[in-house]
């Protein structure tokens, strides 16, 4: 297994993480895999209050992908702190807490609550999802809005606990948003969240998701994620990136790293293979070993070769 990776000053035991929302509360994976297989478990996005989620259907299959419109179902910050976080920590998981809210003050409040909790290795700010109003434009679609939220979260988070900004893959200029977030205090970036997508059930003549518009993830979006990682790393090489979007194998993970990621997160793959985290980690370690290289030496290495 590849060893420890250091990202934005924090140490993670492995370079392969569980992407937000794809490992449930963590408990669901017990029996399927060891939570220590993951460099970190990024929690589903924790919101100010409990959420039941959106009406079904909530998920549908698309070519080499899936679309979901779940509506960030989850326990809310208080129950998360009371039950889920301690459970994860007890079970040896390294935890990055993803948070989502509608407003700066709500983000500040969650960040403050997290500050008092032991076992938070990092905070990931989900900027790509409209929390209470689906028609609202997510923060990640606007550099200023994104930077504002990041700033608030950073200010309310303990020093030494890095803050990652999770951006949307289908924004016009992701580099501009990334730069704004970095300037706003983000210690790193998570690229990318699922992109907006829709399915039609033609037999029923209606959208295949209850909410109509949803989010596309899985191998289908890997080229979109790689492009985002590539462009952001080219412009902001000092900002570490946790890459997600279609990672299913060690080769996929290595591609992300060569494009500029410091770590990768597996999302959809966990829905179809609960043991994907360990497998991807193992495959990646073998590929890195075969190159006789250290993983850190491979970060962004595909950039060097361009034009040669």
């Amino acid at each position, binding site marked *: 297994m590849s060893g420890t990776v250091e990202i934005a000053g924090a140490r993670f035991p492995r370079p392969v993480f569980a992407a937000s929302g*794809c490992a449930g509360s963590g408990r669901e*994976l017990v029996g*399927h895999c060891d939570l220590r297989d993951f460099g970190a478990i990024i929690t589903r996005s924790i919101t100010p209050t409990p959420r039941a*989620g959106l009406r079904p259907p909530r998920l549908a299959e698309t070519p080499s992908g899936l679309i979901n419109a779940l509506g960030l*179902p989850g326990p809310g910050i208080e129950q998360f702190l009371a039950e889920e976080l301690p459970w994860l920590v007890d079970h040896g998981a390294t935890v990055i807490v993803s948070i989502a809210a509608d407003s700066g003050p709500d983000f500040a409040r969650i960040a403050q609550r997290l500050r008092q909790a032991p076992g938070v290795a990092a905070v990931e700010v989900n900027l790509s999802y409209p929390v209470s109003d689906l028609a609202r434009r997510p923060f990640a679609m606007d550099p200023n809005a994104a930077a504002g939220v990041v700033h608030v979260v950073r200010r309310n988070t303990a020093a030494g606990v890095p803050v990652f900004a999770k951006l949307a893959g289908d924004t016009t200029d992701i580099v501009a948003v990334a730069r704004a977030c970095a300037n706003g205090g983000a210690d790193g970036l998570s690229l990318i969240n699922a992109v907006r997508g829709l399915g039609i059930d033609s037999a029923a003549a209606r959208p295949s998701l209850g909410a109509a518009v949803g989010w596309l993830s*899985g191998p289908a979006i890997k080229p979109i994620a790689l492009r985002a990682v590539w462009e952001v790393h080219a412009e902001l090489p000092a900002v570490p990136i946790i890459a997600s979007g279609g990672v299913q194998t060690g080769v996929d993970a290595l591609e992300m790293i060569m494009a500029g990621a410091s770590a990768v997160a597996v999302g959809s793959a*966990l829905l179809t293979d*609960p043991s994907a985290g360990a497998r991807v980690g193992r495959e990646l370690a073998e590929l890195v070993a075969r190159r006789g290289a250290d993983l850190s030496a491979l970060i962004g290495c595909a950039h060097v070769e361009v034009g040669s």
Partner: protein
Amino acid sequence: MITAGQWTASVMARRTAGEYSVVTLSAAGSAAAARPGQYASLRVGGAESSRLLRRALWIREATAGGRHGGTLDVVADVREPGGAWLAAQPESAPVDILAPLGRPFLLPRETVTCLLVGFGVATAPLIRLAEDLVSRGSRVRFLMLGDRAAFGVLGARRFSAEVIDRAGTGADLPQTVADILADGADVVYSAGSAAELRDVAEGLAGTQVPHQAAIHSPLVCGSGTCTACAIPLTGRDSVTRMVRVCSEGPVFNADLVRWADLGTVPGDCLGASGEQQ
């Protein structure tokens, strides 16, 4: 709590009849753990397939022991692309499988008269249940509804129970159930789609007969992580929550399921909000 395993099964045999195919898979030691009402979740299409999602399939039969760590029989609908792929696999083809998944039917402590109501292919989990009940001395009355083609392939008549075949009849379902119930039953077990089970529940309305319902609906992860399968259920604390069919079911105490509100997030559900429904 979780006893499910993940392994690469081999196709040992398959028997296709019309639109259904019973596929026997090597069980890698997991067969003994499988209880009636549980299911298996299979990866379909092979490694390079554009279809990513797993398919949930009832475990029709689980045979422990033997050379391959026992076998599991699952039932695939060949009209569905994933089912068609499975039914087309040659002997010894590898299939990624997770099983047994979900909460099984609870068996009565005493010997009682049980009414089993199965719809089409969802009759599968009830057959094993019927066998268990009969072997424990209970009396089983088995009402079969829906697609009759499924019963043949399921071997749904090969056990000693009173089989009431109403497959294919367009009869008023709640009334049919109520009528048959009137002939006597202490507990009811059902399996079918949400709409079908809602009708059964309606037929039982007003009675005090305990009813365990196994919901047959599309699943995604099978492990409880994705929440795609959530339905509203009112807990004993009177709070309605969205619960996951795949891991908190597929068998539920039918009295607690908000049958009329399936397909929605009811406004009184914990965490519901105007926009979210």
